[in-house]
């Protein structure tokens, strides 16, 4: 039993921390997210240079061969900086699908992704699908040796930056069947792909992605034909672990900032941190962050176990960070008073990010149900 980090992991954390300090001063981030591009491509080049983008990939693919713990360390630090570079969509989601899917397509694409040359986004959500990963109206139909994709994917995070899209499609079966789901890699500039880009409320960039008779070779299938759902679920669980780490980083910043503010803000002749009602609320914020850290460690260590154990761990973590994120975010705003409501203070931005994390890959309700269902299976 040991929850301490190796020297290499601590070094990695320091590297990402330094990257955030250098590039994500709050005002810099604000200006960057307001630009047309919505990010600074130089940051991406720097993440590539530092080897951060290569971290989870195997050495054969030009990676560093790191595991889930390293991804957790990276995501927690990125969460502290509210980083908008597409590490999560490209490395955790797209990279995860390719790593686990394997095959020639992985050999071809991963080295480019690890170098930051290709940026990936995962188009999985659909307008009517809510959080059900198998609820797919997007279809891919066999046509000779090719497939033809048609459909509309909703709020694809990182789509405007992506050079390649991973897309979940239905290749057979009914709309919500577990079987008959297939993942493809599609060039973002392929004929028939159109992306409508927009900013999101938490400062990221996303897009509606439309596929209109997009022809892709069968070689572009990631994983197995018709058996893509287990792959997607595995990557979704890894994504939840990563989001948990990100949320934990954000909660840490909010808790610290709130405690600090309460020591300096004076009303009625004393620091507001002296008021017991606020002390208790901050004690709750502290506990929410600690419990979230624990659950993040828990899910990270269970990602390699069987699908049921892994799924229950991910759902449990997502419930914890959903509830804790709301509590910490709302309390931070409340205790900061009017200042917490402003765009010019970082507090509201962390609150917004935590709010949106709850809806990514299933909210509290969805994962309570999933946990209950899995525990009975």
């Amino acid at each position: 039993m040991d929850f301490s980090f190796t020297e290499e992991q601590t070094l990695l954390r320091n590297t990402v921390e330094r990257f955030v300090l250098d590039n994500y001063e709050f005002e810099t981030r604000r200006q960057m997210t307001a630009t047309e591009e919505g990010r600074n491509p130089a940051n991406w080049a720097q993440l590539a240079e530092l080897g951060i983008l290569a971290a989870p990939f195997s050495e054969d693919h030009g990676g560093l061969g790191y595991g889930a713990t390293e991804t957790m360390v990276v995501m927690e630090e990125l969460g502290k900086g509210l980083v908008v570079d597409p590490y999560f969509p490209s490395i955790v989601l797209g990279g995860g699908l390719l790593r686990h899917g394997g095959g020639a397509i992985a050999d071809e694409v991963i080295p480019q992704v690890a170098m930051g040359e290709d940026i990936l986004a995962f188009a999985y959500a659909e307008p009517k699908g809510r959080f059900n990963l198998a609820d797919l109206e997007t279809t891919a139909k066999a046509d000779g040796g090719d497939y033809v994709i048609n459909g509309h994917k909703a709020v694809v995070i990182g789509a405007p930056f992506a050079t390649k899209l991973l897309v979940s499609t239905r290749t057979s079966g009914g709309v919500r069947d577990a079987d008959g789901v297939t993942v493809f890699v599609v060039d973002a500039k392929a004929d028939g792909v159109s992306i409508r880009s927009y900013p999101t409320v938490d400062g990221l960039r996303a897009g509606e992605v439309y596929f209109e008779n997009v022809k892709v070779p069968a070689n572009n299938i990631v994983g197995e034909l018709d058996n893509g759902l287990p792959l997607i679920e595995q990557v979704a669980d890894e994504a939840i672990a990563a989001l948990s780490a990100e949320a934990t980083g954000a909660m840490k910043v909010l808790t610290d900032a709130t405690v600090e503010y309460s020591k300096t803000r004076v009303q009625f002749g004393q620091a507001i941190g002296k008021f017991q009602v606020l002390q208790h609320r901050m004690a709750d914020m502290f506990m929410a962050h600690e419990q979230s850290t624990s659950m993040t460690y828990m899910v990270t260590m269970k990602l390699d176990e069987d699908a049921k154990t892994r799924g229950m761990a991910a759902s449990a973590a997502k419930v914890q960070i959903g509830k804790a994120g709301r509590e910490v975010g709302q309390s931070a705003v409340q205790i900061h008073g009017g200042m917490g409501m402003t765009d010019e203070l970082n507090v509201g931005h962390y609150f917004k990010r935590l709010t949106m994390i709850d809806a990514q890959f299933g909210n509290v309700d969805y994962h309570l149900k999933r946990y209950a269902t899995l525990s009975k299976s």
Partner: protein
Amino acid sequence: MDTSFSPDELAFRDEVRAFIAENYPEDIKAKMEAGVELNKEETLRWHGILAKKGWVAPGWPEEWGGTDWTPGQKFLFDQACAEAGTPGVLPFGISMVAPVIYTFGSDEQKQQHLPPIYNGDLWWCQGYSEPGSGSDLASLKTKAVRDGDDYIVNGSKTWTTLAQHADWIFCLVKTDTNVKAQEGISFLLIDMKTPGITVRPIITMDGGHEVNEVFLEDVRVPVANRIGEENKGWTYAKFLLTHERTGIAGVARSKKGLARLKEIAKAEYIDGRPLFEDQDFSRKIAELEIDLTALEYTDLRVLSELRKGNHPGPESSILKIKGTEIQQRLTELTLEAVGTYAAPFYRGLDDRWNEFPVGPDYAVGSAPKYFNMRKTSIYGGSNEIQRNIIAKAVLGL
């Protein structure tokens, strides 16, 4: 025990409903239904419609345009407006500064200010909070120093709602710094065009521009613009805070929001079935509806006291606390119901709100609204302050 209204009152409600149905502009209605903030012109247009009908300031004395409605009629009027989803009349002129003016102001002040407030010709804002004085309002630092027939005012105000449109500001200022904080405050009416006043926007986290900082640098204000006596401003401010507390619970508006939430839950799908049929989600809606019912009956009990001529005391803090908690929960559940399409952010929402929203129309304002409504437990005496009031003034702790 009787919760029904009299036939006269119900006939009155029908009259109000009919008037709204006939006069509520479609474009404003569409914006309100989408949860998008109105601009100045739209806000004033609705104000003007009510002013023309004679219904914009029901609480005022009749000689200045009040309606002499009973508390029951006022309640039903607010309810009918909320049901129809009309904008609220901005409180700063009509229900904040005007009651202070007609209660404590001079005849000249009444003549000068009440008609333009009534007609919506002049826009007012409130200069209370300061960077260092929020919950502890009496600690305010803005100073007014007497110079002949004028005061010279220096200081800054913050969280000043819609000051960017304002023609006038009513301000609490320090006129005596050698006495207890509450005893050295005066209440001034200041023309925003006076040299030395600058307004700086504060953008809130939802992207909106609702509040501002107002800086006052050597601003010359005629002594004639002071309300009542020098150093008695705290009394007038407290009067203002306790005046017109009806409607603070926002029951009818929350009911409207609840109905909208149900519509969204019917339009959203979960595993091929409407979200509204999902047991987890429908339980949350039910719980909120039950909380709202409790608030509604508490509100009616306050109304019943008002009808007997009794003024609600510190108990009305319940209405603020529960009212805002319910409003916040409502936006939280709406955000949750919307799901995926809560994420897109529409820049410059007030001008371009209906430009091809991605996803359904009802999703457009859901996240900004949730973020924005966090303010309600902070403003108007934070909910912590309200609980202190109940603890001290009601429970005697």
